[in-house]
Protein backbone atom coordinates (compact mmCIF):
# COMPACT_ATOMS: atom_id res chain seq x y z
CA UNK A 1 0.00 0.00 0.00
CA UNK A 2 1.05 3.58 -0.50
CA UNK A 3 2.29 4.88 2.83
CA UNK A 4 2.21 8.30 4.44
CA UNK A 5 4.78 9.21 7.06
CA UNK A 6 3.29 9.54 10.53
CA UNK A 7 4.97 10.45 13.79
CA UNK A 8 4.37 8.44 16.97
CA UNK A 9 2.25 11.19 18.47
CA UNK A 10 -0.05 11.19 15.44
CA UNK A 11 -0.37 7.42 15.63
CA UNK A 12 -1.34 7.63 19.33
CA UNK A 13 -3.92 10.30 18.46
CA UNK A 14 -5.53 8.04 15.86
CA UNK A 15 -5.45 5.08 18.25
CA UNK A 16 -7.25 6.98 20.99
CA UNK A 17 -9.80 8.24 18.52
CA UNK A 18 -10.62 4.74 17.32
CA UNK A 19 -10.98 3.53 20.92
CA UNK A 20 -13.65 6.18 21.51
CA UNK A 21 -15.44 5.33 18.24
CA UNK A 22 -14.61 8.79 16.87
CA UNK A 23 -12.03 8.70 14.09
CA UNK A 24 -10.04 11.69 12.90
CA UNK A 25 -12.71 12.76 10.41
CA UNK A 26 -15.58 12.18 12.86
CA UNK A 27 -16.72 8.80 11.52
CA UNK A 28 -17.65 5.81 13.64
CA UNK A 29 -15.68 2.61 13.34
CA UNK A 30 -18.15 1.07 10.89
CA UNK A 31 -18.83 4.08 8.67
CA UNK A 32 -17.69 4.47 5.09
CA UNK A 33 -16.44 7.72 3.63
CA UNK A 34 -18.21 9.64 0.86
CA UNK A 35 -18.75 7.25 -2.03
CA UNK A 36 -19.51 8.22 -5.63
CA UNK A 37 -20.26 5.73 -8.37
CA UNK A 38 -21.04 6.10 -12.03
CA UNK A 39 -21.49 3.39 -14.65
CA UNK A 40 -21.26 3.41 -18.43
CA UNK A 41 -18.40 5.90 -18.56
CA UNK A 42 -16.40 4.25 -21.37
CA UNK A 43 -18.29 3.73 -24.59
CA UNK A 44 -16.14 1.10 -26.29
CA UNK A 45 -16.40 -1.44 -23.48
CA UNK A 46 -19.22 -3.88 -22.78
CA UNK A 47 -19.57 -2.41 -19.31
CA UNK A 48 -17.71 0.13 -17.23
CA UNK A 49 -17.87 1.87 -13.87
CA UNK A 50 -16.00 4.51 -11.96
CA UNK A 51 -15.95 4.59 -8.15
CA UNK A 52 -14.59 7.42 -6.04
CA UNK A 53 -14.28 6.59 -2.33
CA UNK A 54 -12.98 9.86 -0.80
CA UNK A 55 -9.56 10.09 -2.49
CA UNK A 56 -9.46 6.60 -3.96
CA UNK A 57 -10.35 6.60 -7.65
CA UNK A 58 -10.94 3.35 -9.52
CA UNK A 59 -12.01 2.86 -13.14
CA UNK A 60 -13.14 -0.57 -14.36
CA UNK A 61 -13.81 -1.64 -17.94
CA UNK A 62 -15.31 -5.01 -18.93
CA UNK A 63 -14.75 -6.44 -22.37
CA UNK A 64 -16.39 -9.66 -23.57
CA UNK A 65 -14.74 -11.97 -26.08
CA UNK A 66 -15.64 -15.39 -27.38
CA UNK A 67 -13.20 -18.11 -26.53
CA UNK A 68 -12.59 -21.67 -25.45
CA UNK A 69 -13.73 -22.64 -21.95
CA UNK A 70 -11.51 -24.02 -19.21
CA UNK A 71 -11.02 -27.78 -19.81
CA UNK A 72 -12.04 -28.47 -16.20
CA UNK A 73 -15.28 -26.48 -16.49
CA UNK A 74 -16.55 -27.07 -19.99
CA UNK A 75 -20.04 -25.65 -19.57
CA UNK A 76 -18.99 -22.45 -17.87
CA UNK A 77 -17.58 -19.14 -19.09
CA UNK A 78 -14.50 -17.40 -17.71
CA UNK A 79 -13.88 -14.29 -15.69
CA UNK A 80 -10.39 -12.80 -15.98
CA UNK A 81 -9.26 -9.97 -13.72
CA UNK A 82 -6.43 -7.60 -14.53
CA UNK A 83 -5.39 -4.76 -12.27
CA UNK A 84 -3.18 -1.91 -13.43
CA UNK A 85 -1.78 0.61 -10.94
CA UNK A 86 -1.41 3.78 -12.94
CA UNK A 87 1.52 6.09 -12.29
CA UNK A 88 -1.04 8.90 -11.92
CA UNK A 89 -1.60 7.68 -8.37
CA UNK A 90 2.00 7.96 -7.25
CA UNK A 91 5.36 8.10 -9.07
CA UNK A 92 6.36 4.84 -7.36
CA UNK A 93 3.98 3.00 -9.67
CA UNK A 94 5.98 3.99 -12.73
CA UNK A 95 7.01 1.14 -15.01
CA UNK A 96 6.60 -2.08 -13.08
CA UNK A 97 6.53 -0.48 -9.62
CA UNK A 98 2.84 -1.15 -9.04
CA UNK A 99 2.90 -4.81 -10.03
CA UNK A 100 3.04 -6.24 -6.51
CA UNK A 101 -0.01 -4.34 -5.37
CA UNK A 102 -1.80 -5.12 -8.63
CA UNK A 103 -1.17 -8.86 -8.25
CA UNK A 104 -2.45 -8.78 -4.66
CA UNK A 105 -5.69 -7.07 -5.63
CA UNK A 106 -6.35 -9.27 -8.65
CA UNK A 107 -5.67 -12.46 -6.68
CA UNK A 108 -8.13 -11.32 -4.01
CA UNK A 109 -10.74 -10.65 -6.69
CA UNK A 110 -10.20 -14.10 -8.21
CA UNK A 111 -10.61 -15.66 -4.79
CA UNK A 112 -13.75 -13.70 -3.98
CA UNK A 113 -15.47 -14.53 -7.28
CA UNK A 114 -14.38 -18.18 -7.30
CA UNK A 115 -17.43 -19.31 -5.34
CA UNK A 116 -19.98 -21.02 -7.68
CA UNK A 117 -23.03 -19.57 -5.91
CA UNK A 118 -21.99 -15.96 -6.11
CA UNK A 119 -21.37 -15.57 -9.81
CA UNK A 120 -23.01 -18.07 -12.10
CA UNK A 121 -20.52 -18.72 -14.89
CA UNK A 122 -23.04 -20.91 -16.71
CA UNK A 123 -24.78 -17.76 -18.00
CA UNK A 124 -21.64 -17.11 -20.05
CA UNK A 125 -21.76 -20.43 -21.85
CA UNK A 126 -22.51 -20.34 -25.61
CA UNK A 127 -21.82 -23.85 -26.93
CA UNK A 128 -21.00 -26.29 -24.12
CA UNK A 129 -17.51 -27.74 -24.44
CA UNK A 130 -16.41 -25.47 -27.30
CA UNK A 131 -17.34 -21.79 -27.04
CA UNK A 132 -18.00 -19.46 -24.16
CA UNK A 133 -17.82 -15.80 -23.29
CA UNK A 134 -14.66 -14.66 -21.54
CA UNK A 135 -15.17 -11.48 -19.54
CA UNK A 136 -11.97 -9.47 -19.18
CA UNK A 137 -12.42 -7.21 -16.17
CA UNK A 138 -9.71 -4.55 -16.28
CA UNK A 139 -9.21 -2.39 -13.22
CA UNK A 140 -7.33 0.90 -13.43
CA UNK A 141 -6.17 2.43 -10.16
CA UNK A 142 -6.01 6.17 -10.67
CA UNK A 143 -5.57 7.53 -7.18
CA UNK A 144 -4.78 5.90 -3.83
CA UNK A 145 -6.56 7.23 -0.78
CA UNK A 146 -6.66 4.11 1.36
CA UNK A 147 -8.99 1.12 1.25
CA UNK A 148 -8.18 0.01 -2.27
CA UNK A 149 -9.69 -3.49 -2.02
CA UNK A 150 -13.18 -2.30 -1.09
CA UNK A 151 -13.32 0.41 -3.72
CA UNK A 152 -12.04 -1.99 -6.38
CA UNK A 153 -14.63 -4.63 -5.57
CA UNK A 154 -17.44 -2.06 -5.63
CA UNK A 155 -16.29 -0.81 -9.02
CA UNK A 156 -15.99 -4.36 -10.36
CA UNK A 157 -19.48 -5.26 -9.19
CA UNK A 158 -20.92 -2.07 -10.67
CA UNK A 159 -19.13 -2.63 -13.99
CA UNK A 160 -20.32 -6.24 -14.22
CA UNK A 161 -23.86 -5.10 -13.42
CA UNK A 162 -23.57 -2.57 -16.26
CA UNK A 163 -22.17 -5.16 -18.70
CA UNK A 164 -24.30 -6.05 -21.67
CA UNK A 165 -23.23 -9.04 -23.76
CA UNK A 166 -24.67 -9.34 -27.28
CA UNK A 167 -26.96 -12.32 -27.76
CA UNK A 168 -25.59 -15.20 -29.81
CA UNK A 169 -27.69 -17.50 -31.98
CA UNK A 170 -26.28 -20.94 -32.68
CA UNK A 171 -27.23 -22.63 -35.94
CA UNK A 172 -26.32 -26.25 -36.55
CA UNK A 173 -25.66 -26.91 -40.22
CA UNK A 174 -24.47 -30.37 -41.35
CA UNK A 175 -22.61 -31.00 -38.13
CA UNK A 176 -20.92 -27.57 -38.20
CA UNK A 177 -22.00 -25.04 -35.64
CA UNK A 178 -22.20 -21.42 -36.67
CA UNK A 179 -22.37 -18.52 -34.29
CA UNK A 180 -24.20 -15.36 -35.16
CA UNK A 181 -23.59 -12.42 -32.86
CA UNK A 182 -26.43 -9.93 -32.78
CA UNK A 183 -25.64 -6.39 -34.02
CA UNK A 184 -28.62 -4.85 -32.29
CA UNK A 185 -27.40 -2.74 -29.34
CA UNK A 186 -30.61 -3.51 -27.44
CA UNK A 187 -30.56 -7.26 -28.06
CA UNK A 188 -28.29 -7.98 -25.14
CA UNK A 189 -27.88 -10.26 -22.18
CA UNK A 190 -27.32 -8.75 -18.75
CA UNK A 191 -25.57 -10.47 -15.86
CA UNK A 192 -27.18 -11.52 -12.62
CA UNK A 193 -25.14 -9.79 -9.92
CA UNK A 194 -27.52 -10.32 -7.00
CA UNK A 195 -25.26 -12.76 -5.17
CA UNK A 196 -21.84 -11.33 -6.07
CA UNK A 197 -19.52 -10.41 -3.27
CA UNK A 198 -18.06 -7.11 -2.16
CA UNK A 199 -14.73 -7.04 -0.41
CA UNK A 200 -14.62 -5.54 3.08
CA UNK A 201 -11.30 -4.72 4.72
CA UNK A 202 -11.09 -4.57 8.49
CA UNK A 203 -8.02 -2.93 9.95
CA UNK A 204 -6.96 -3.60 13.50
CA UNK A 205 -6.06 -0.30 15.18
CA UNK A 206 -5.10 -0.75 18.82
CA UNK A 207 -7.66 -3.05 20.43
CA UNK A 208 -10.55 -2.31 18.10
CA UNK A 209 -10.99 -2.57 14.36
CA UNK A 210 -12.18 -0.11 11.74
CA UNK A 211 -13.82 -0.36 8.35
CA UNK A 212 -12.72 1.79 5.40
CA UNK A 213 -9.42 3.01 6.78
CA UNK A 214 -7.91 6.16 5.37
CA UNK A 215 -4.22 6.20 4.46
CA UNK A 216 -3.23 7.52 7.89
CA UNK A 217 -5.22 4.81 9.67
CA UNK A 218 -3.69 2.15 7.43
CA UNK A 219 -0.30 3.39 8.61
CA UNK A 220 -1.32 2.62 12.21
CA UNK A 221 -2.57 -0.90 11.52
CA UNK A 222 -0.36 -3.90 12.04
CA UNK A 223 -2.86 -6.47 10.84
CA UNK A 224 -5.92 -6.49 8.65
CA UNK A 225 -8.53 -8.99 7.58
CA UNK A 226 -9.80 -8.81 4.01
CA UNK A 227 -12.99 -10.70 3.29
CA UNK A 228 -15.44 -11.11 0.44
CA UNK A 229 -19.05 -10.85 1.62
CA UNK A 230 -22.27 -11.34 -0.35
CA UNK A 231 -25.64 -9.67 0.21
CA UNK A 232 -26.87 -12.65 2.24
CA UNK A 233 -23.86 -12.46 4.54
CA UNK A 234 -21.98 -15.45 3.07
CA UNK A 235 -18.23 -15.13 3.22
CA UNK A 236 -16.62 -16.11 -0.08
CA UNK A 237 -12.98 -15.31 0.69
CA UNK A 238 -10.92 -14.51 3.73
CA UNK A 239 -7.37 -13.32 4.03
CA UNK A 240 -5.36 -12.04 6.94
CA UNK A 241 -2.62 -9.63 6.00
CA UNK A 242 0.01 -7.59 7.72
CA UNK A 243 3.01 -8.06 9.94
CA UNK A 244 1.07 -8.20 13.21
CA UNK A 245 -0.60 -11.26 14.69
CA UNK A 246 -4.24 -11.65 15.62
CA UNK A 247 -6.03 -13.50 18.36
CA UNK A 248 -8.65 -16.02 17.13
CA UNK A 249 -11.36 -14.12 19.07
CA UNK A 250 -10.40 -10.87 17.37
CA UNK A 251 -10.65 -12.56 14.01
CA UNK A 252 -14.14 -13.80 14.92
CA UNK A 253 -15.19 -10.30 15.98
CA UNK A 254 -13.81 -8.83 12.80
CA UNK A 255 -15.61 -11.43 10.72
CA UNK A 256 -18.90 -10.58 12.45
CA UNK A 257 -18.43 -6.87 11.77
CA UNK A 258 -17.34 -7.60 8.23
CA UNK A 259 -20.41 -9.70 7.60
CA UNK A 260 -22.72 -7.00 8.93
CA UNK A 261 -21.01 -4.21 7.03
CA UNK A 262 -20.78 -6.31 3.88
CA UNK A 263 -24.51 -7.04 3.85
CA UNK A 264 -25.47 -3.37 4.10
CA UNK A 265 -22.78 -2.35 1.61
CA UNK A 266 -24.13 -4.79 -0.97
CA UNK A 267 -27.69 -3.61 -0.41
CA UNK A 268 -26.72 0.05 -0.81
CA UNK A 269 -24.78 -0.65 -3.97
CA UNK A 270 -27.58 -2.63 -5.61
CA UNK A 271 -30.07 0.08 -4.68
CA UNK A 272 -27.88 2.81 -6.19
CA UNK A 273 -27.28 0.75 -9.33
CA UNK A 274 -31.01 0.14 -9.70
CA UNK A 275 -31.73 3.86 -9.40
CA UNK A 276 -29.10 4.76 -11.95
CA UNK A 277 -30.53 2.16 -14.32
CA UNK A 278 -33.97 3.65 -13.93
CA UNK A 279 -32.77 7.10 -15.01
CA UNK A 280 -31.63 5.44 -18.20
CA UNK A 281 -30.28 7.61 -20.99
CA UNK A 282 -31.83 10.80 -19.60
CA UNK A 283 -28.73 11.34 -17.46
CA UNK A 284 -25.67 12.64 -19.28
CA UNK A 285 -22.52 10.67 -18.57
CA UNK A 286 -20.13 12.98 -16.72
CA UNK A 287 -17.09 10.85 -16.09
CA UNK A 288 -14.12 12.99 -15.09
CA UNK A 289 -15.66 16.24 -16.24
CA UNK A 290 -17.57 16.65 -13.01
Amino acid at each position, binding site marked *: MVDVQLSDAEKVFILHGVQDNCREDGRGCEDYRHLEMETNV*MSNTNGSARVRLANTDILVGVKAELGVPNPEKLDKGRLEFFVDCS*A*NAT*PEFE*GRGGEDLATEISNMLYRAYDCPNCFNLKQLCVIPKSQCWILYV*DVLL*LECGGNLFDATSLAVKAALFNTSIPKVTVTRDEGLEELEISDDPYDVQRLDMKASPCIVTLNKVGHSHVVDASQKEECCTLARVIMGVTEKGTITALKKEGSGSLDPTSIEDMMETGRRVGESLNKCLMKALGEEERHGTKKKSLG*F*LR
Partner: protein
Amino acid sequence: MAGLELLSDQGFRIDGRRPHELRKIQCRLGVFNQADGSAYIEQGNTKVLAAVYGPHEIRGSKSKALHDKVLVNCQFSMATFSTGERKRRPRGDRKSQEMTMHLQQTFDAAIQTTLYPRSQIDIFVEVLQSDGGNYCASVNASTLALIDAGIALRDYVCACSSSFINDTPITDINYLEESSGSPEIIAATLPKSEQIVFLLMNGRLHEDNLSRVTDMAVKGCKDIHDILDQVVRDHVSEVSTVHGWEN
Protein backbone atom coordinates in the same frame (compact mmCIF):
# COMPACT_ATOMS: atom_id res chain seq x y z
CA MET B 1 -12.93 -0.16 -47.32
CA ALA B 2 -15.84 -0.54 -49.68
CA GLY B 3 -18.78 1.73 -49.08
CA LEU B 4 -16.95 3.76 -46.42
CA GLU B 5 -16.26 7.20 -47.81
CA LEU B 6 -13.77 9.11 -45.73
CA LEU B 7 -14.75 12.33 -47.46
CA SER B 8 -18.10 12.48 -49.24
CA ASP B 9 -18.77 14.52 -52.40
CA GLN B 10 -20.61 17.14 -50.34
CA GLY B 11 -17.49 17.61 -48.23
CA PHE B 12 -18.55 15.72 -45.09
CA ARG B 13 -16.33 13.27 -43.23
CA ILE B 14 -17.52 10.03 -41.60
CA ASP B 15 -18.49 11.73 -38.35
CA GLY B 16 -20.19 14.63 -40.14
CA ARG B 17 -17.37 17.15 -39.76
CA ARG B 18 -16.09 19.49 -42.44
CA PRO B 19 -12.40 19.09 -43.43
CA HIS B 20 -11.20 22.03 -41.32
CA GLU B 21 -13.29 21.25 -38.22
CA LEU B 22 -11.84 19.96 -34.97
CA ARG B 23 -13.60 17.40 -32.79
CA LYS B 24 -15.46 18.57 -29.71
CA ILE B 25 -12.97 19.33 -26.93
CA GLN B 26 -13.97 19.19 -23.28
CA CYS B 27 -11.41 19.43 -20.52
CA ARG B 28 -10.94 19.89 -16.82
CA LEU B 29 -7.94 20.90 -14.70
CA GLY B 30 -7.24 19.66 -11.20
CA VAL B 31 -8.93 16.26 -11.43
CA PHE B 32 -6.82 14.61 -8.70
CA ASN B 33 -5.70 15.96 -5.32
CA GLN B 34 -2.63 13.80 -4.87
CA ALA B 35 -0.75 14.85 -8.00
CA ASP B 36 0.84 18.29 -8.14
CA GLY B 37 -1.03 18.95 -11.35
CA SER B 38 -3.60 16.93 -13.27
CA ALA B 39 -5.87 17.39 -16.24
CA TYR B 40 -8.43 15.45 -18.25
CA ILE B 41 -9.22 16.06 -21.89
CA GLU B 42 -11.83 14.61 -24.25
CA GLN B 43 -11.20 15.17 -27.94
CA GLY B 44 -14.20 13.58 -29.60
CA ASN B 45 -14.10 9.99 -28.35
CA THR B 46 -10.46 10.07 -27.27
CA LYS B 47 -10.18 10.47 -23.48
CA VAL B 48 -6.82 11.15 -21.84
CA LEU B 49 -5.76 11.80 -18.24
CA ALA B 50 -2.45 13.45 -17.41
CA ALA B 51 -0.78 13.84 -14.01
CA VAL B 52 2.32 15.87 -13.21
CA TYR B 53 4.56 15.40 -10.19
CA GLY B 54 7.29 17.88 -9.55
CA PRO B 55 9.63 19.50 -9.57
CA HIS B 56 11.14 17.17 -6.98
CA GLU B 57 14.39 15.47 -6.15
CA ILE B 58 15.67 12.93 -8.66
CA ARG B 59 14.30 9.47 -7.86
CA GLY B 60 16.40 6.42 -8.48
CA SER B 61 19.96 6.93 -9.67
CA LYS B 62 21.33 10.36 -8.82
CA SER B 63 23.73 10.06 -11.72
CA LYS B 64 20.91 10.98 -14.11
CA ALA B 65 20.73 14.45 -12.58
CA LEU B 66 21.63 17.27 -14.97
CA HIS B 67 23.56 20.10 -13.36
CA ASP B 68 21.97 22.88 -15.36
CA LYS B 69 18.55 21.57 -16.44
CA VAL B 70 15.58 19.68 -15.11
CA LEU B 71 15.12 16.03 -15.99
CA VAL B 72 11.78 15.50 -17.73
CA ASN B 73 10.50 11.99 -17.14
CA CYS B 74 7.41 10.85 -19.05
CA GLN B 75 5.36 7.71 -19.12
CA PHE B 76 2.72 6.96 -21.71
CA SER B 77 0.27 4.23 -20.81
CA MET B 78 -2.96 3.02 -22.42
CA ALA B 79 -5.69 1.30 -20.42
CA THR B 80 -6.29 -2.26 -21.59
CA PHE B 81 -9.92 -1.43 -22.33
CA SER B 82 -9.09 1.75 -24.27
CA THR B 83 -8.92 0.25 -27.76
CA GLY B 84 -11.52 -1.67 -29.75
CA GLU B 85 -9.54 -4.89 -29.38
CA ARG B 86 -8.40 -5.45 -25.81
CA LYS B 87 -4.74 -4.55 -25.25
CA ARG B 88 -2.73 -7.17 -23.40
CA ARG B 89 -0.21 -4.86 -21.73
CA PRO B 90 -0.87 -1.24 -20.78
CA ARG B 91 2.74 -0.12 -21.34
CA GLY B 92 6.17 -1.47 -22.11
CA ASP B 93 5.51 -2.33 -25.72
CA ARG B 94 7.38 -0.65 -28.55
CA LYS B 95 4.69 1.87 -29.46
CA SER B 96 4.23 3.13 -25.91
CA GLN B 97 7.97 3.54 -25.46
CA GLU B 98 8.16 5.52 -28.69
CA MET B 99 5.29 7.73 -27.54
CA THR B 100 7.06 8.24 -24.21
CA MET B 101 10.18 9.45 -25.98
CA HIS B 102 8.18 11.78 -28.22
CA LEU B 103 6.44 13.33 -25.21
CA GLN B 104 9.77 13.75 -23.47
CA GLN B 105 11.28 15.53 -26.46
CA THR B 106 8.25 17.77 -26.82
CA PHE B 107 8.18 18.90 -23.21
CA ASP B 108 11.92 19.26 -22.95
CA ALA B 109 11.52 22.01 -25.51
CA ALA B 110 8.54 23.65 -23.83
CA ILE B 111 9.42 23.66 -20.13
CA GLN B 112 11.86 26.34 -18.96
CA THR B 113 14.33 23.66 -17.95
CA THR B 114 17.05 26.01 -16.72
CA LEU B 115 14.86 27.11 -13.83
CA TYR B 116 14.94 23.71 -12.08
CA PRO B 117 18.48 22.31 -12.19
CA ARG B 118 19.21 18.94 -10.57
CA SER B 119 15.47 18.23 -10.23
CA GLN B 120 12.97 15.98 -11.93
CA ILE B 121 9.51 16.59 -13.35
CA ASP B 122 7.31 13.52 -13.96
CA ILE B 123 4.54 13.57 -16.55
CA PHE B 124 2.28 10.50 -16.52
CA VAL B 125 -0.27 10.11 -19.29
CA GLU B 126 -3.05 7.53 -19.21
CA VAL B 127 -5.24 7.00 -22.28
CA LEU B 128 -8.68 5.85 -21.16
CA GLN B 129 -10.31 5.65 -24.56
CA SER B 130 -8.53 5.72 -27.88
CA ASP B 131 -10.15 6.99 -31.07
CA GLY B 132 -7.24 8.48 -32.97
CA GLY B 133 -5.05 11.43 -32.04
CA ASN B 134 -3.55 9.79 -28.96
CA TYR B 135 -0.35 11.79 -29.13
CA CYS B 136 -2.21 15.07 -29.70
CA ALA B 137 -4.62 14.56 -26.83
CA SER B 138 -1.72 13.47 -24.59
CA VAL B 139 0.25 16.63 -25.37
CA ASN B 140 -2.79 18.85 -24.81
CA ALA B 141 -3.63 17.12 -21.53
CA SER B 142 0.00 17.32 -20.36
CA THR B 143 0.14 21.04 -21.12
CA LEU B 144 -2.95 21.61 -18.99
CA ALA B 145 -1.54 19.42 -16.21
CA LEU B 146 1.77 21.33 -16.26
CA ILE B 147 -0.12 24.61 -16.02
CA ASP B 148 -2.17 23.17 -13.14
CA ALA B 149 1.07 22.21 -11.39
CA GLY B 150 2.45 25.71 -11.83
CA ILE B 151 5.54 24.70 -13.78
CA ALA B 152 7.13 27.44 -15.87
CA LEU B 153 6.53 26.91 -19.58
CA ARG B 154 7.78 28.90 -22.57
CA ASP B 155 4.29 28.76 -24.07
CA TYR B 156 1.35 26.37 -24.34
CA VAL B 157 2.16 23.26 -26.36
CA CYS B 158 -0.71 22.30 -28.60
CA ALA B 159 -0.72 19.33 -30.93
CA CYS B 160 -2.94 18.51 -33.86
CA SER B 161 -2.95 15.94 -36.63
CA SER B 162 -3.88 16.31 -40.26
CA SER B 163 -4.24 14.13 -43.30
CA PHE B 164 -4.76 14.37 -47.05
CA ILE B 165 -7.82 12.64 -48.54
CA ASN B 166 -9.38 13.18 -51.99
CA ASP B 167 -7.06 16.13 -52.66
CA THR B 168 -8.26 17.89 -49.50
CA PRO B 169 -6.23 18.44 -46.34
CA ILE B 170 -8.32 17.46 -43.29
CA THR B 171 -7.60 18.23 -39.66
CA ASP B 172 -7.87 16.30 -36.36
CA ILE B 173 -8.25 12.79 -37.73
CA ASN B 174 -9.96 9.98 -35.84
CA TYR B 175 -9.10 6.27 -35.70
CA LEU B 176 -10.92 5.27 -38.90
CA GLU B 177 -9.19 7.98 -40.89
CA GLU B 178 -5.82 7.06 -39.32
CA SER B 179 -6.08 3.39 -40.20
CA SER B 180 -7.35 3.96 -43.73
CA GLY B 181 -3.84 4.22 -45.13
CA SER B 182 -3.89 7.94 -45.90
CA PRO B 183 -0.81 9.98 -44.98
CA GLU B 184 -0.82 11.51 -41.51
CA ILE B 185 1.05 14.52 -40.17
CA ILE B 186 1.21 15.21 -36.44
CA ALA B 187 2.54 18.58 -35.35
CA ALA B 188 3.04 20.12 -31.91
CA THR B 189 3.61 23.87 -31.84
CA LEU B 190 4.15 26.77 -29.49
CA PRO B 191 1.16 28.76 -30.80
CA LYS B 192 2.22 32.34 -29.95
CA SER B 193 5.55 32.16 -31.73
CA GLU B 194 4.25 29.60 -34.26
CA GLN B 195 7.33 27.44 -33.69
CA ILE B 196 7.01 23.72 -34.35
CA VAL B 197 8.44 21.59 -31.51
CA PHE B 198 7.46 18.20 -32.89
CA LEU B 199 6.66 16.99 -36.38
CA LEU B 200 5.94 13.44 -37.45
CA MET B 201 4.67 12.02 -40.70
CA ASN B 202 3.28 8.57 -41.49
CA GLY B 203 2.42 7.26 -44.90
CA ARG B 204 3.18 8.67 -48.33
CA LEU B 205 2.53 12.28 -49.28
CA HIS B 206 3.58 14.14 -52.42
CA GLU B 207 6.04 16.97 -51.77
CA ASP B 208 3.74 19.51 -53.44
CA ASN B 209 1.04 18.91 -50.86
CA LEU B 210 3.33 18.91 -47.82
CA SER B 211 3.06 22.62 -47.03
CA ARG B 212 -0.75 22.61 -47.32
CA VAL B 213 -1.14 19.68 -44.93
CA THR B 214 1.42 21.02 -42.44
CA ASP B 215 -0.28 24.43 -42.48
CA MET B 216 -3.56 22.66 -41.74
CA ALA B 217 -2.02 20.98 -38.69
CA VAL B 218 -0.46 24.22 -37.45
CA LYS B 219 -3.78 26.03 -37.88
CA GLY B 220 -5.44 23.23 -35.90
CA CYS B 221 -2.89 23.77 -33.12
CA LYS B 222 -3.74 27.46 -33.02
CA ASP B 223 -7.45 26.69 -32.72
CA ILE B 224 -6.79 24.21 -29.93
CA HIS B 225 -4.67 26.84 -28.17
CA ASP B 226 -7.64 29.24 -28.12
CA ILE B 227 -9.83 26.55 -26.55
CA LEU B 228 -7.25 25.50 -23.95
CA ASP B 229 -6.46 29.11 -23.05
CA GLN B 230 -10.13 29.81 -22.39
CA VAL B 231 -10.41 26.68 -20.21
CA VAL B 232 -7.38 27.72 -18.14
CA ARG B 233 -8.69 31.24 -17.65
CA ASP B 234 -12.11 29.94 -16.59
CA HIS B 235 -10.48 27.51 -14.16
CA VAL B 236 -8.30 30.20 -12.62
CA SER B 237 -11.20 32.61 -12.21
CA GLU B 238 -13.25 29.83 -10.60
CA VAL B 239 -10.46 28.89 -8.19
CA SER B 240 -9.78 32.52 -7.33
CA THR B 241 -13.45 33.12 -6.56
CA VAL B 242 -13.53 30.05 -4.30
CA HIS B 243 -10.40 31.19 -2.47
CA GLY B 244 -11.50 34.81 -2.27
CA TRP B 245 -8.59 36.37 -4.15
CA GLU B 246 -9.16 39.87 -5.49
CA ASN B 247 -10.32 40.02 -9.09
